[in-house]
């Protein structure tokens, strides 16, 4: 049953091929078997999963089931879950049991989904390889010597290994799309403001957005439908109706105008990855789409822009971790300043401290205009590039990452090399536009992701465009050999 997509599982549950309890037990066995190899989970919630499964089975038997009833998922450990440890991959929150549910968790619980557990991630979502987690790195199911990408590496590895049929994730600079690409699965980062950030631990509040890592665009559409929409508890949640994604999923692509981002093909792209992307584009041409090259001249500045804006917001957001109200506190503080400094010095890992310090520096007196204000102006230029491009084309396409998955440890000592991994994904966060990554082939036996980007609130079109490709190809159905068999 693990090879089924979420949409297929929903049909099979209704056809009574197996019960939600049987499905949940089978997946929990997979979680346990994969954990020593992949380290994809921080917490497994077996007991509550079986309780939710029993409720879902009763709802199905009574004919009171909704479209998501009984479908299992995993939550990235950045989403607060009531009564369950919510660590954000950090020692700082190793002892934190959330007293409330994030809106995303609340909505998916209400829809009858079954939570298998909380997935591993880069500490406070800061990283592109899952190596910054306090709980150790996640391994890539395609080759366990390699990183799964990050920061949603646990969610991507879990879905790639078919340990969880779908998982929530978050994306501040590529943290959904890059791991989805490196693990050969589908990822969607919705428009800023589409999915509530309430209860989603903040990293950079003008960039963070919750989304999904799934086996297919069709599965993502199913769950995004329930996850999206206005939430008065998030002041940046946008009160715009959520369209019915299933309704337009199969719309024909004839006449679709696809813009190829010239800057993404200019420099730094692995030539075999480029070939793979170009082949995917030919599939779209066959489906009746028209390809045109578009220029987004400010886009190459997205990495430096991001490394001012994101650390600035992070240094401010993470000021809340003070060792007083929750989180790690150092032993025997001699005064209040010592309590703050040592609790934070011990509770945060190296990369988080690097970003807090970068942010503190760019916001400090005398540097604010030169760095922060300047970056906000360049952000506007990047935003205008996207706006102009969407005046000419329906969607933008290009690679998700410059290369396939790299070795664990290969970039860990050089932060700049690590940051450049997100060179193609950061732009969408700066402009707040929705973007996806879908599997489009293999290079050196490792998956490659095609990035699709749309205008604000264009999720329905993105899902439609991704689904059309997945009807023509089977890259998204490929499973790493070590995980293709049923776990007895």
């Amino acid at each position: 049953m693990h090879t089924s997509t979420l949409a297929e599982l929903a049909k099979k549950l209704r056809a009574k091929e197996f019960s939600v309890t049987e499905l949940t037990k089978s997946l929990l066995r997979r979680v346990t078997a994969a954990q020593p190899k992949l380290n994809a989970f921080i917490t497994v919630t077996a007991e509550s999963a079986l309780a939710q499964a029993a409720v879902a089975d009763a709802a199905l038997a009574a004919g009171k089931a909704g479209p998501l009833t009984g479908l299992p998922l995993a939550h990235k450990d950045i989403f607060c879950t009531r009564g369950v440890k919510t660590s954000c991959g950090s020692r700082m929150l190793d002892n934190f049991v959330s007293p409330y549910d994030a809106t995303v968790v609340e909505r998916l619980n209400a829809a009858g989904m079954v939570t298998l557990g909380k997935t591993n991630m880069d500490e406070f979502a800061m990283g592109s390889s899952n190596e910054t987690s306090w709980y150790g790195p996640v391994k890539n199911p395609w080759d366990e010597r390699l990183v799964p990408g990050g920061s949603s590496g646990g969610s991507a590895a879990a879905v790639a290994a078919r340990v969880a049929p779908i998982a929530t994730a978050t994306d501040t600079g590529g943290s959904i799309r890059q791991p989805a690409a490196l693990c050969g699965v589908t990822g969607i980062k919705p428009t800023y403001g589409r999915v509530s950030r309430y209860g989603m631990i903040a990293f950079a509040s003008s960039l963070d957005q919750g989304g999904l890592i799934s086996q297919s665009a069709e599965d993502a559409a199913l769950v995004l439908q329930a996850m999206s929409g206005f939430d008065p508890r998030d002041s940046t949640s946008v009160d715009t109706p959520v369209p019915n994604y299933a309704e337009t999923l199969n719309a024909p692509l004839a006449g679709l105008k696809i813009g190829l981002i010239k800057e993404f093909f200019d420099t730094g792209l692995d030539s075999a990855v480029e070939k793979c992307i170009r082949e995917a584009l030919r599939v779209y041409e066959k489906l009746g789409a028209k390809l045109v090259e578009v220029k987004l001249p400010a886009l190459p500045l997205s990495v430096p822009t991001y490394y001012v804006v994101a650390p600035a917001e992070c240094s401010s957001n993470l000021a809340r971790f003070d060792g007083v109200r929750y989180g790690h506190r150092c032993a025997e503080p001699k005064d209040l300043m010592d309590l703050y400094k040592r609790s934070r010095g011990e509770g945060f890992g190296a990369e988080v401290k690097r970003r807090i310090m970068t942010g503190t520096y760019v916001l400090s007196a005398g540097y604010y205009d030169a760095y922060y204000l300047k970056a906000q102006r360049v952000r506007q230029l990047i935003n205008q590039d996207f706006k102009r491009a969407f005046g000419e084309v329906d969607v933008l396409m290009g690679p998700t990452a410059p290369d396939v998955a790299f070795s664990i440890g290969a970039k860990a000592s050089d932060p700049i090399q690590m940051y450049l991994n997100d060179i193609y994904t950061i732009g969408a966060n700066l402009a707040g536009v929705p973007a996806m990554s879908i599997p489009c082939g293999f290079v050196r036996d490792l998956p490659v992701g095609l990035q699709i980007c749309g205008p604000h609130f264009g999720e329905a079109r993105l899902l439609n465009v991704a689904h059309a490709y997945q009807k023509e190809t089977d890259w998204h159905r490929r499973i790493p050999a070590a995980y293709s068999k049923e776990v007895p």
Partner: protein
Amino acid sequence: MSLNRDQINSIAHLARLSLTEAEIPVYQDSLSKIVDLVGQLDAAPTTGVEPMAHPLPGLAQRMRPDVVTEKDQHELYQRNAPQVEAALYLVPKVIE
């Protein structure tokens, strides 16, 4: 541009982070590289460009009526606190 030890110590103090001796040269090196990376922005022509703080221009922050909507759950919330007494968060002595 290269940041010196004093600058790193001063940033760490502002950020309320204790650093070990071994960490200082590591952050000196990486923060200097990051400052160089963001230095690329200097060349971008931004005269007259409106700074962008968030991706939803034109969207005013919503206001809500100033009424109590939460019930008192301090016991639940304080279960995560390192040290609590009589419903108060305890910290080392602040006033001598």
